[in-house]
């Protein structure tokens, strides 16, 4: 299924200035993505998983060059696109498209569906008039919308249908790579499956490459060939889906997997529950060395001093890598693990909330 590398990221770093003080601006930064490298091969689906503020969406936007990188390098289809100016990004914009999370927010409420789906044509000046209309209607049919609804407004569609509109827009220019940013997390369960199936069908027919971002691990497992787990701006574990889900090495991966609510009472009772202490620390001042150490049930002195590298652990195949000094062996019971770090070393209390935007703080109007 997977072929040559179509997107390659090398040591991508993205820092955002803390937007609050003009005097201190530039001194404090949010470490959204910190030295992340990854490869995406043609035709595969790579899942990026992690909790709020882990940097998965930022990373994806760096890959699409919607954001400028602080440092590092991104290649698309063999070309370095790291330093391209906005006007030279045309090819990237055409061939790498995005599907967004919010089926309400991602469609302009004041524009008709036909014009929204036809936007890529208008922006890139391909197809116009009747030709554009015909192509848009073909796209609508492709994603399972009634082409007669060309002149309707987004408000007249249900959540699932709106997401189809977003998919149609992303496919208009026949992209090679589609970045799906939590495409189903705002949808009701009964609709989620419809959209996931649609995405799977389209991938097969159009030979698409997906970068699939989600916080729902079951969904990611369902769609992805390979997954990357992120925590506080870093990839902590990555590899083929089944490999990672069955033999998760990083304690964080294990905790995350054990926290997924299972719609199966017996299985839910049987599996170990690893409840992590505390919250995700602030990305403005992330913990030293291994960023997970303050919450890690296995943390030891080494975790505070030496940053673990992303490499195969415990005899795993080279494709399965984890960044942990004390990887979890099969059958190991993490619920029993007690860290050797003292309470002071395990500062579990976040001094500030993850991202400034969500804390509800505000600037003077």
């Amino acid at each position, binding site marked *: 299924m997977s072929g040559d590398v179509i997107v390659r990221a090398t040591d991508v770093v993205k820092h955002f200035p803390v937007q609050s003080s003009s005097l201190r601006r530039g001194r404090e930064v949010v470490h959204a993505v910190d030295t992340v490298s990854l490869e995406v091969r043609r035709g595969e689906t790579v899942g990026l998983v992690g909790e709020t503020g882990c940097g998965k969406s930022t990373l994806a936007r760096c890959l699409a060059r919607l954001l400028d990188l602080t440092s590092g390098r991104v290649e698309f289809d063999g070309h370095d696109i790291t330093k391209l100016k906005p006007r030279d990004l045309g090819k990237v914009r055409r061939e790498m498209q995005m599907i967004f999370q919010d089926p309400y927010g991602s469609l302009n409420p004041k524009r008709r569906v036909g014009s929204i789906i036809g936007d890529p044509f208008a922006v890139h000046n391909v197809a116009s008039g009747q030709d554009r209309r015909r192509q848009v209607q073909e796209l609508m049919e492709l994603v399972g919308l009634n082409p007669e609804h060309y002149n309707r407004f987004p408000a007249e569609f249900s959540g699932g249908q709106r997401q189809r509109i*977003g998919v149609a827009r992303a496919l208009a220019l026949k992209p090679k790579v589609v970045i799906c940013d939590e495409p189903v997390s705002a949808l009701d369960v009964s609709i989620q499956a*419809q959209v996931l199936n649609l995405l799977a069908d389209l991938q097969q027919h159009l030979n698409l490459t997906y970068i699939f971002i989600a916080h729902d691990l079951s969904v990611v497992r369902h769609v992805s060939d390979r997954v990357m787990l992120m925590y506080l701006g870093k990839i902590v574990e990555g590899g083929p889906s089944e490999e990672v889900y069955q033999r998760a090495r990083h304690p964080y991966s294990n905790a995350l997997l054990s926290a997924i609510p299972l719609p199966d009472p017996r299985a839910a009772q049987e599996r170990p529950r690893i409840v992590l202490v505390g919250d995700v620390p602030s990305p403005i001042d992330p913990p030293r060395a291994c960023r997970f150490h303050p919450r890690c049930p296995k943390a030891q002195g080494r975790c505070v001093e030496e940053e673990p590298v992303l490499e195969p652990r415990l005899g795993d195949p080279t494709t399965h890598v984890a960044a942990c000094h004390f990887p979890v062996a099969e059958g190991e019971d993490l619920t029993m693990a007690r860290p050797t770090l003292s309470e002071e070393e395990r500062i579990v209390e976040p001094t500030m909330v993850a991202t400034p935007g969500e804390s509800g703080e505000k600037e003077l109007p």
Partner: protein
Amino acid sequence: MTIPSAIESHTELAIEPGVAAERAIEGRSTWQLAWMRLRKDKAAVVSFVVIVLIVLMAIFAPVVASLTGHGVDQQFRTTGLNGFGQPVGPNGTFLLGTDDLGRDILVRIAYGARISLLVGVVATLIMVAIGTVLGLMAGYLGGIVDSIIARLIDLVLSLPFLLFAISLVSVTHPGLAVVIIVIAVFNWAAVARIVRGQVLSIREKEYIEAARSLGAGPLRIMFVDVLPNVLTQLIVYATLLIPVTIVLEATLSFLGLGIPPPTADWGQMIAESEGVYQQAWWFLVFPGLALLVTTLSFNILGDGVRDALDPRLERR
């Protein structure tokens, strides 16, 4: 397009009864919906009719003059003033009475409507135009552009309008154009601030990011994606600005800083009535009423338009 459209049969969906139930709003744009709601708002409809009547009166002011047979600046020293040289009250010849110079107040009110509406509409349009463009630029482009425009807005909002109007008029000669420009130059900032605020929140919407991810440039995004979303607010705001502008013009004229006499102007008529109105109440009341009815109608209509365009929005 070479994409096979066979996928459709695999994907479970289609136009199901759920949506059929939503047909209530099918195919109707925001404007059509707003128009439907507005028509149900009796107060707004009445005030709209009143505004139309006032506009007609302004347009056909010469007709009013010829019907009464009284020119706008014509002074009727014998019929229009009593034995003591005082104005006469409403009677068969002068329906709304005369002013201190024996001029027909009805005719002067009709002509005064022209100034009020002209200044109200033109100054508002200028304010909205300046405010929209600067607000859009500040809100969408951000950075240094925003800093400069935001400071400019702060500055203009810190200027006491009437005092600056007084200053400007004191070094120039008052007149229609000066009045319009003075009003527009010192009042666009409120529009700009509102637009900027709106744009700042719209900028965070995913559909803007979607447009950027498609490769749309800032100009296209500003005018194709952002502007239509501020438009409803703008229209509401403009409707509510017209009466404010009309009052500003009348106030300037009242203070003797507006349109110079003998041009008929409501604010000026009220100013001229001072000292006389104890005996000639009609001289104060009718121009005042004309002003009040006009501003009230615009305000009611503005509130109606706001409620119709966005029923959730109940602010200001």
